[in-house]
């Protein structure tokens, strides 16, 4: 097929849809269907260059691929007229991908942005379900586990537990009734790797689950996916139905007599449900509260039966390892961390998107070479990894390689893969406060230290941001943080203080400036800045005067206005109404 027909692929992951991808797709459909053209229009998942959405790829009859960025419905007409009809590439809209992809290696994302996720045949054409067939017909469960262990695959949900070991423990239990659960409750703010894989290549995850089920001897599985990802839910549901219809899931899989059914469970919005025992409680229909381990879920999980819980990305790696062997997987990575890791690159980075890099590459390489540095062009200040459980790594540690142990040593964690880049306009105290307000809100309330300790830490940080901090607050924060880590039952509480502790460790000076000088160097904490109207820019329209509730702004119509610093309550309302960009924070 490929090479003979001209194809148009529209990236319809959530980012693409959010940027207006559906309308682009519809416009292509109108024009292509109206005849004169034998091009085939297709949807695909996340192509990875989210910063240029909507992305459209044209593959001509010779197999040449052209990627267009920022395609709007209006631009579609010209692409159809010039490229599809006359074979003329529109150079000014082409996205240069060589820099972005040069350092990447795609195992998990092998099909994302390449195939139509709704089309099982396309997945099969790219070796889909061949790994499952190989496992079912040529390997024993023990051999499968041996292979995964040998490859050194570790859990990609963040903690990095060896997948082979987990499978072996689950297999060893005597209970005939076992479960495989795919943890797709990607709750970290700033992370969208799992969503992109589920949307772009749902079958690879299902195939990984079926292989896990064969290895441990399970006949039932669940995918626990966030309800906040409607598109991923829809595509997964469709993929499960297709796979079941074609004998890749369900009874007598591929004619081998192996039986494995998968059901979908939608989460209901609780960050703590990413923790495995809380996730189990949620599938059982209860409040998602973690419980004491042991017993671990591999011994006693869902409804008391052994349950093997793996993350989306971990499972998507499995079919590739089966087909290519442990050595191919081990070929990239460091001594303790093998294979690749997918990151969601966001924040103040020039080229944000979804990237997959070999383990061992440095943070600097990911941000500067793949991400293209910061939007402002200045050096980055810090990168936040691991979301609310992780920490901020300062720029001077940018040579730290992507490796479970080395990242943990820096105070952050590998995490699920969120990478938020920050520059000097980001206030680290404010970032710490932001994450703590998130975890404080999401704490299930079971452990006292997590429930009340995070609340007290948040109050202290709010005080510091409001310019009412005391210098002894810093010791109190560190002390409370250590106690919360030591006295919480689950991962949420044990890691909640990380964003505060890492910023205290690397950006102590910024805290001190907030407290001693009552100044916010990044000009983010509103209580610590002065609002000022630039007389050069102000045209005296008076919008800010109307917006100001306290009458702090005065001036004659059509002449520059000014703000009375004494009366100003720093609500920033004037800033949101000014059309001249004349109001500044100083």
């Amino acid at each position, binding site marked *: 097929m490929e090479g003979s027909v001209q194809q148009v692929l529209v990236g319809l992951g959530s980012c693409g849809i959010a940027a207006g991808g559906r309308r682009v797709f519809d416009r292509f459909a109108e024009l292509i269907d109206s005849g004169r053209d034998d091009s085939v229009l297709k949807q695909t998942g996340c192509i990875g260059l989210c910063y240029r959405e909507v992305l459209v790829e044209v593959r001509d009859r010779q197999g040449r691929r052209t990627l267009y960025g920022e395609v709007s419905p209006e631009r579609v007409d010209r692409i159809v007229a010039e490229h599809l009809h006359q074979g003329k590439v529109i150079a000014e809209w082409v996205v240069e991908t060589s820099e972005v992809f040069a350092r990447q290696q795609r195992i998990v994302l092998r099909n994302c942005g390449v195939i139509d996720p709704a089309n099982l045949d396309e997945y099969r054409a790219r070796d889909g379900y061949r790994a499952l067939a190989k496992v079912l017909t040529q390997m024993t469960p023990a051999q499968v586990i041996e292979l995964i262990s040998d490859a050194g695959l570790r859990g990609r949900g963040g903690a990095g537990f060896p997948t082979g070991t987990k499978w072996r423990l689950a297999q060893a239990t005597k209970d005939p009734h076992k479960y495989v659960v795919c943890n797709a409750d990607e709750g970290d703010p700033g992370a969208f790797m799992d969503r992109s894989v589920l949307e772009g290549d749902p079958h690879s995850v299902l195939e990984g689950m079926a292989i896990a089920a064969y290895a441990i001897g399970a006949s039932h599985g669940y995918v626990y996916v966030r*309800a906040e990802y409607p598109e991923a839910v829809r595509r997964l549901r469709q993929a499960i139905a297709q796979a079941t219809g074609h004998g890749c899931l369900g009874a007598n899989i591929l004619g081998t007599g192996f039986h494995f059914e998968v059901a979908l469970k939608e989460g209901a919005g609780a960050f703590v449900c990413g923790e495995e025992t809380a996730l189990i409680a949620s599938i059982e229909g209860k409040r998602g509260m973690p419980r004491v381990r042991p017993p671990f879920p591999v011994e006693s999980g869902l409804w008391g039966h052994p349950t093997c819980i793996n993350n989306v990305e971990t499972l998507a790696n499995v079919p590739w390892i089966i087909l290519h062997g442990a050595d191919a997987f081990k070929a990239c990575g460091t001594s303790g961390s093998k294979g690749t890791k997918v990151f969601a690159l*966001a924040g103040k980075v020039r080229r944000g998107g979804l990237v997959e890099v070999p383990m061992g590459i440095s943070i600097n390489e990911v941000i500067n070479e793949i991400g293209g540095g910061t939007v402002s062009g200045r050096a980055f200040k810090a990168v936040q990894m691991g979301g609310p459980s992780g920490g901020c790594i300062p720029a001077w540690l940018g040579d730290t390689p992507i490796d479970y142990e080395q990242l943990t040593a820096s105070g952050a964690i590998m995490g699920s893969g969120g990478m938020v880049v920050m520059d000097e306009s980001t206030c680290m105290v404010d970032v710490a406060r932001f994450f703590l307000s998130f975890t404080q809100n999401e704490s299930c309330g079971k452990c006292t230290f997590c429930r009340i300790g995070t609340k007290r830490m948040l109050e202290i940080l709010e005080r510091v941001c409001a310019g009412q901090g005391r210098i002894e607050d810093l010791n109190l924060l560190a002390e409370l943080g250590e106690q919360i880590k030591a006295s919480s039952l689950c991962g949420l509480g044990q890691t909640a203080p990380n964003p505060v502790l890492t910023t205290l460790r690397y950006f102590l000076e910024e805290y001190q400036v907030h407290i001693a000088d009552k100044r916010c160097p990044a000009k983010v904490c509103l209580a610590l800045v002065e609002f000022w109207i630039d007389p050069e820019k102000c045209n005296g329209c008076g919008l800010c005067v109307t917006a100001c509730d306290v009458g702090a702004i005065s001036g004659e119509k059509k002449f520059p206005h000014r703000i009375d610093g004494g009366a100003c309550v720093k609500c920033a309302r004037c800033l949101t109404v000014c059309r001249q960009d004349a109001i500044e924070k100083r």
Partner: protein
Amino acid sequence: MAHAPADENTNPSHAFGRMLWRHRGEPGMLIPLLQAAQDSYGHIPQLAVEQISEVTGIPASEIYGVITFYKQFRLKPVGKHLIRLCKGTACHVVGADMIAQTVADELKVPPDETTDDGLFTFTVVACLGCCSLAPVLMIDEEAYGRMTPQQVRRILRQYRQRAATSLRATIPKAPSAVLPANP
């Protein structure tokens, strides 16, 4: 789809009723039943809780415990349009607070409240997962990326105008058109 209000032309309780009717005591069905109730009614009314309790045998107190644990569930009706403002990390560092304030100012309601005219319910969510389009705002199922206070005001006013003139629903300006060129 979970947040879309039920279509007035169809029987709102239909999907939920069918699910209740088919329930045969399978374990773990409480959350799917609650989700179906919310899909059908836009929120979870007391009657639905009583019906679920009767069919599953789970005490209403326990059901309320589950409802209040999860952020997805609402016990109060929502407005015609549900606004979800993203406060994920990526949105936060590029000024989601200012967007939140603009929405609250424009609608004159704080987060988690519905406007007096019943047109909008304003909520703040942890992450919509469109981090590279930050800051992001979602109205019903439509996402708007790279928002500025001015754009937020304009979009909200378009929704208002449309409701006031009760014109046939026209889709507001596409987000692709309001995205400024990338630097």
